[in-house]
Each structure stands twice: as structure tokens, then as C-alpha cells.
């Protein structure tokens, strides 16, 4: 379809801005823009139709089943969006005085309280704008903790080889070096391997639990205590919290610091890549290092306390992605304690149901027939026998109007597909997905050759990613 720059015509546009009612000032010559500025020259009709067409070529949770493993693509309740749009939230200047933003402060304090209860942490800070940002922040807390105790040789973060790529990336951004430890053949942390690498240089250990293959780490207490005994801290990657709300809490498992993804577990929409929100929670021993000023209450008025001198400092301007926090609090208030637990239980039930109905056909490398809220399939066998890869399989699903699972993650499983149905899918949707997965598998066995051409019915076929990367075209060229 056309780019917005290819629509409209010279001097076309929308008349949006009022006339100037004060004397016009001109820009001093030294600062005046000489460079040409090419922006679209389109009518409002054209803008409206352009984006309607783009929306037609975009697949969201609203369009259908979206079992993207580790991303928790649950339904995004509309009421939360509506409430976040209230002008009393969306039109509030971040530098307004505290007396005029009591509602905002209340939202953050209440969300902090609930999220602390869910995770078993003592404080929660909303400044980080996304999960990876939260990881960086949490790791800086760990760094500050050790430095504060003059324990400066702790410069290693231990990460399982099944971890999200952001974990090692965040650790190295925060100034640590990374030690990768292998997983056991069962897909769990290799406790002996962990024991053999911890020591006086251990700053901390990062873990997702349930882990990235969809299993709960049964030895979690032993794992966290090995790290604690070595003098390190335990970091909880909250990507998979959706399995265990109201069932178990990272704080009770021995974790000292967590980050959450409000755009996953707490149903806030992901906007085609963001904005998300990645609050960091921690135990008291780390609270003083948090980036934001604490919100305190005195005589019924909420205020920001003075900045703690031990704070690691800001990771972002202002207070984080506030409107995302509004949505998450709405969600927690809607569901309440029972509803949150019910959501987790159904997320786990849906995943187990789907896995159970696929396991006779697909290779499920881990879990012995049980999983938490997601499970991993390996298509290694069909790749070897029929040359149909996980990518080919995923692309075939597109022709059924279905978003594929996460591909090629975790890295420890070859030809991996990771399926996370979430609790907001109905039994009939799961049954339909199960039928389609089986049908596609069957086709792959019978007619493997056609598989490299799928999808056939989408707006475009497979894009040439090699030439995109070799000869990058990253902007529209107006001289063409």
C-alpha cells in the first residue's frame, strides 16, 4: 500500500491552528531553519483512510488468538483504556504541585500496595518504562547494595542459558559481567552448576519463575539460598508472573528484587511494541536505592519525600509511564484478590489443556505432561525428516488467521515454538487452535514442500530479510 508521503498533493493539508493574536516574532537569522522539511501534505480524509488501511494490516489481540509465549497477550479490557483517557489523568502536567495531583499520587501508591502484596515485596517503583528498563534498574539496586557494604568485588551476575536475552544485556549494561549456567535436561536450573559458580564475586542471580520453558523451579528455595549464602541477591524476572498470582510470591521464594511487566500480567495493551511499564519491586534492604522519591502521607495529604541520598538516581524523566499504571490499577481493582488468582489458574489450565491435546503429535521436551501458563514445542524431528522448520510452521498458521507462538525461544530448544494461550481464551478457541495445529502438522508431514512458501493469504508474503539487512532502506527518499 501507499506510504503517507505518496498520498495527497502539494500544498494540501488540514487547517488546525488558530491565527496569531499577539505580535509575530521572527527567528534570529543564526538560528533559522534553512533545510527543507518534507512532511506529508494530506487532507484529514486521507489521513483517516491511510491509517484505517494500516490498521487492516495489523494483527492485535482484538483480531484473534495471540499465543505469543512469554508475552502474555491477554485481552486488554476497554474500561481501563477509557479511564486512562480521563483528562484528570491525561491532561495533568508532571510538574504540577503535589496538592493538585493527589489523584495521581493515590494511583501510584495504591498500585504499589497491591503489586507489593502480589509479589511479596516491600516497595515498588514505577519509573522504569518497560521490562528491560526494570531489569537495568533492579540490577543497579543490587550494585548499590554491594557498594554500600564496601563489597566491591561482586561484579558477576549469574543467568541461566534459558533466560530472556534482555537479562544478560541488562546485566552488562549495569556494569556486571555475565556467567551463563546450563539447564538440566528437564529444563530446570542446574543446582550443582549454580553451586559451582557462586562465590565472593557473585553479585546476584537472575531467574524467571515459572521459567522460560514454562516450568516452576521446584528447587527454588534451595536455589535462592545458595545465592544468599554466597552473599549474592536474587532477581526475579516477572515476565511469567501470570501463572502464579495469588498462588505463590517471589518474595516468599527468596527473591530480593523483581520487575513486572504491566503490559503482560496486568492486561495493559502493548501498542505494537510499547509503551509498557516495568516497575521494580524490592525488599526493604534495597528500598533506599530506588530511583524515585517515595510517596508519603501526612494528615491525609500525599507528598513526595525528599530524594534518598542512597538512590541510584533517575532512569527516566518524571515518574514512568503513568497512564499504564492507571490501567493496571483498574485491572487489579476489577479483579480483586480472587479474580487475580482465578486469572492465573485459568491461564495455567488453558495451557495444560492445549498441551495435553497436542502432546501425542508434537514433541514437548519438558514437563512430563504438565506445564504452568505456557509450554514449549520442539519441531526438531519434522525439521530433520521433512525440512519443515519452526518458522515454516509459524508462517503456515498465519493463513489460518492466527498469530503464531513465539519462535526460536528459548535458545536451549532447537526449532522451538512457545505457546502461551492466556486465561482470556475460551475453550472453543483453544479447541480450534488445537485442531489447526494438528492439521498443519499433518500437512507438514504429507506435503512438506509447500511449506517454504507460506503464508499465501496475508497482505504480503515472506519478506526478504537478508537484503533488508544488507542494504538497509530505513526511510522514504523524497527525491525518488
Amino acid at each position, binding site marked *: *500500500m501507499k506510504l503517507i508521503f505518496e498520498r495527497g498533493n502539494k500544498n494540501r493539508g*488540514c487547517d*488546525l*491552528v488558530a491565527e496569531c493574536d*499577539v505580535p509575530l516574532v521572527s*527567528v534570529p537569522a*543564526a538560528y533559522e*531553519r534553512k*533545510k527543507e522539511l*518534507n*512532511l506529508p501534505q494530506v487532507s484529514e480524509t486521507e489521513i483517516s483512510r491511510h*491509517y484505517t488501511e494500516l490498521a487492516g494490516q495489523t494483527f*492485535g489481540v482484538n483480531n484473534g488468538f495471540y499465543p505469543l509465549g512469554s508475552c502474555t497477550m491477554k485481552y486488554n479490557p476497554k474500561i481501563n483504556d477509557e*479511564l486512562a483517557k*480521563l*483528562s*484528570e*489523568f*491525561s491532561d*495533568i502536567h508532571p510538574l504540577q504541585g503535589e496538592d*493538585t495531583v493527589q489523584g*495521581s499520587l493515590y494511583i501510584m501508591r495504591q498500585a504499589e500496595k497491591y503489586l507489593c*502484596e502480589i509479589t511479596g515485596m516491600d516497595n515498588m517503583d514505577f519509573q522504569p*518504562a*518497560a521490562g528491560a*528498563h526494570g531489569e537495568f534498574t533492579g540490577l*543497579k539496586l543490587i550494585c548499590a547494595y554491594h557498594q554500600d557494604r564496601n563489597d566491591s568485588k561482586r561484579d558477576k551476575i549469574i543467568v541461566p542459558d534459558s533466560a*530472556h*536475552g*534482555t537479562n544478560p*544485556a541488562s546485566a552488562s*549494561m549495569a*556494569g*556486571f*559481567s555475565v556467567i551463563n549456567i546450563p539447564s538440566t535436561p528437564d529444563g530446570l536450573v542446574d543446582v550443582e552448576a549454580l553451586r559451582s559458580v557462586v562465590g565472593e564475586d557473585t553479585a546476584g542471580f537472575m531467574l524467571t519463575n515459572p521459567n522460560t520453558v514454562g516450568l516452576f523451579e521446584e528447587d527454588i528455595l534451595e536455589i535462592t539460598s545458595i545465592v544468599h549464602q554466597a552473599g549474592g541477591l536474587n532477581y526475579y524476572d516477572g515476565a511469567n508472573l501470570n501463572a502464579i498470582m495469588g498462588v505463590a*510470591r517471589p518474595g516468599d521464594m527468596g527473591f530480593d528484587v523483581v520487575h513486572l*511487566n504491566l503490559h503482560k500480567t496486568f492486561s495493559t495493551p*502493548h*501498542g505494537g*511494541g510499547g509503551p509498557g511499564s516495568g516497575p521494580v519491586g524490592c525488599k526493604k534492604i534495597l528500598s533506599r536505592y530506588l530511583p524515585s522519591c517515595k510517596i508519603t502521607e501526612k494528615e491525609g495529604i500525599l507528598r513526595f519525600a525528599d530524594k534518598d541520598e542512597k538512590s*541510584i538516581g533517575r532512569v*527516566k*524523566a518524571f515518574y514512568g*509511564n*503513568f497512564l499504564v499504571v492507571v490501567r493496571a490499577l483498574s485491572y487489579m481493582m*476489577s479483579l480483586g*484478590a480472587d*479474580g487475580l488468582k482465578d486469572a492465573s489458574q*485459568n491461564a*495455567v489450565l488453558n495451557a*495444560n*489443556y492445549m498441551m495435553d491435546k497436542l502432546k501425542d503429535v508434537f514433541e514437548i521436551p519438558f514437563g512430563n505432561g504438565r506445564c504452568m501458563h505456557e509450554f514449549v514445542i520442539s519441531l526438531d524431528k519434522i525439521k530433520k525428516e521433512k525440512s519443515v522448520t519452526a518458522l515454516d510452521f509459524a508462517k503456515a498458521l*498465519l493463513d489460518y488467521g492466527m*498469530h503464531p507462538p513465539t519462535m526460536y525461544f528459548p535458545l536451549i530448544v532447537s526449532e522451538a515454538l512457545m505457546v502461551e494461550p492466556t486465561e482470556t481464551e475460551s*475453550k472453543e478457541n483453544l479447541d480450534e487452535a488445537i485442531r489447526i495445529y494438528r492439521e498443519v502438522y499433518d500437512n507438514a508431514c504429507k506435503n512438506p514442500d509447500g511449506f517454504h*512458501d507460506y503464508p499465501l493469504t496475508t497482505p*504480503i*508474503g515472506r*519478506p*526478504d530479510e537478508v537484503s533488508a539487512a544488507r542494504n538497509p532502506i530505513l526511510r522514504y527518499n523524497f527525491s525518488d
Partner: protein
Amino acid sequence: MATYVPNTKEEQRQMLNSIGLNAVDELYSSIPNEVKLKAPLNIPKGMSEMDLSKSIRDIASKNKVFKTIFRGGGAYRHYIPAIVKQVTSKEEFITAYTPYQAEISQGVLQSIFEFQTMICELTGMQVANASVYDGACAAAEAVIMSKERKRKKALISASVNPMTIETIRTYISGTDMDMEVIPTKEGVTDIEILKDRLEDDTACVLIQQPNYYGLLEDGDEIGSILGDKDIKYIMSCNPISLGILKAPSEYGVDIAVGEGQALGIGLSYGGPYLGFMATTDKLMRKLPGRIVGETKDSKGRRAFVLTLQAREQHIRREKASSNICSNQALCAMTAAVYLSAMGRDGLEKVARLSMSKAHYLASRLCELDGYEMVYKGDFFNEFVIRVNTDVDKVLKALENGGILGGYPLGDNSYNNENKGEILWCATEVNTKDEIDTLIQILKEVE
């Protein structure tokens, strides 16, 4: 209690039975008993949508929406066209994930490609990414990007927004980079001191244009000092101002960054906002974050994909240039719709009006006894005024009149000596009447 679980209890029971279980708890048999919660969470009972709506509205009502705002400092109230709000409310855009599956994500991918193009146009640079968290993070990422094996020191002007300076400090604190803040003279970067501080290990110089005090920095002079020194020139800029002010490329900038909130995104109590980053072809592969590129599909049709991914964390892990994964995609789309609606002429008008209204506001304020401009330099739409009365009293009087006055700098700026100084801002939405009313109120404050 609201629920978004479609399956009825009966259906849940059927599903459990079909996988050989009797009770939901059995799904959690792998969790050791010692870590299982013994009591329900201490969170109130859930509520219906009606009750929720009322509760949240009650909370919201404790926030005060100002009819008139003369405060900026990194967040600006500009007019947001209706088409911007409508387009960005489309459910497909809101509820999509990162466009990993290009075949069903052309809408999001194309919108990012268009956004990248517009950021390149605004800044005059050659390459832009798909956004980072905000302007402060964009500056911090740019500083990290400028690092080279033998160049590890960042020079940051004290006239950069203090929140940006603090964010950079946090970002680089764990790395082998170092930073030094270059003091200001007359509110702008002290170029003599800057010259003095340039060393063989200097990686970059960061200035903000217009700066935190609203003043225009001598970007040309800084550009010529840096000239052929192989030191990266980073400029944080206000995208609205680029409708009339020099593009960063015209100063010889290597990396242009900024806060894009002014481009159609609400004040939102500080977020979500939009960090943008643009650079030269030469530095393309050092740019962090998602980047969308154009290619062809199997039938030769134009197609868009996430590209240059080998820079990123999911492939390069601990060697990645940045850990960023989620960004601010919907905000980037918002900015693109805003710029499409405004066009070049509209953006120029918004910029010119903002500048003109700010100058009118400044001249009217200076008519008042005890009000004077702190700096003499040229400014865009923000400026600092020193008052010889009680700042709190002045702002309170305005607040009572429904006006959010300027921002009291107090200790909220890098130079901790701004007593009595207020940072004012005006944009195209402020009318002459509003400004005259403000002056009237201030006249009545003793």
C-alpha cells in the same frame, strides 16, 4: 467481581477432567508447599465495571486540570488534533505486540517506517530508530552510543534538563564511561570552558537546543569547535521548534535526540512519552532499539520488516549495544499522525505561535514591578524570570485563577542558585486573553 475469563466453572471442570485432574490446585503440584500462599491476597474484593468506573473517577477528581498552563520544563501542552486521538485509538494498533510476524504486521511496521522518515526530516539526519522510552533515555543512549575504545568521557552542558543529566549519570554509572558537566555562562553553555575540556578521550558533547532555560545555544560555534576532532556532537532538541529553528544536521550534529511528547501526546502526568533518536549513516549500526527497513516480499511487493536485528539483545545478549526491547511504538505512531495532520506549514505555524506567545508573555511580565528577565539571550518558547516577591504566593494566586504558572526553579535546576527564578512557557494554545488575565492576577499580588 469483573472477570475476563470466558470459560464457565462448568467448562473449567470439563477441561480439568479431560486432562486427568480433579481440582485446579493439582495444576500447581510442582510448587513446593513451603512457598505456596496460605491465605488470600490482601487486596479488596473485585468490582463491577460500573463500580470501578465510579471509583477511578473519584480518584481522578482529586487531580486538578488547569484550564491554562504556562509551565513546560520538559512537558508541554500543545493542541492535539481530533484525528490524532481517533487514529491512535484503533484497537488493532493498541492491542498488537511488537511486529515479529511481518506478514500480519505491515500496518505497525509501515507506521514506524513513516515515523523514522519524519524524524529524519525534522532533524536532517539520515537514520532514526523506532523510539526509546523518553527524551532523557534517548540522550543517555546517545551518550553510550558515542563511546569508542579510546574515547570514554562525555561532556554534558549544565543547561541540559537536569532530569536528563541525572538519567545519563545513572545509565553510565556502571560502565567504563565518565561524564563532566560543563558550566553555563549567561544561561548557555560556556564555550571557553568547553573548549578547555576537550581531550583525546572525549567521546561526546551533549547540548540541549533550546536549552532548559529556553535559550538558544550557539550550536554553530560548538559544531565548529568539534569540527574534525572525532568527538560526537549530540543535540537534544524540541521537535516542535524544528518547524522554524535550524535542524541539528545544520549544526553538524552526529546524534540528534529529543522528547517527542509535544507531537500530539498528552501531558499524562509524565508518561508515556516518546524518546526519539536519529544519526548519520556512519553510526547506523550503533543506534540502539528497533529499526524498521524496507524490502520486498517473495512476489516482489514492497514490504517492511524489523531489521539490523543482530545489534539487539535477543541475539547479541550480553554484547548488545542496549537492552531495550519494548519501546514507545504507539507514541511514535501518535507523533507520525500529528506530523501528518500538521504538515510542514502547520508545524511551522505551531512553532512560530509558541515563540511569539512566549515573547508576548515575557514582555508583559517584564512590565510588572519586581519582574525581570534573568538572561539576555535569544529564546524560543521558554524563559526565566526573577521575581522579588514570594514565588509560592505568586503561583498560588495564579492557581486560584485556574492558571498553572511557570515552574519555580528553586533547587530544580543544575545550578543550585535559582532562588526567585521561575521558568515560564507558552505554546500556541495560550491566547492573548489568557496572558492578559495572568498579568492582571499578578498585578493584584502584593
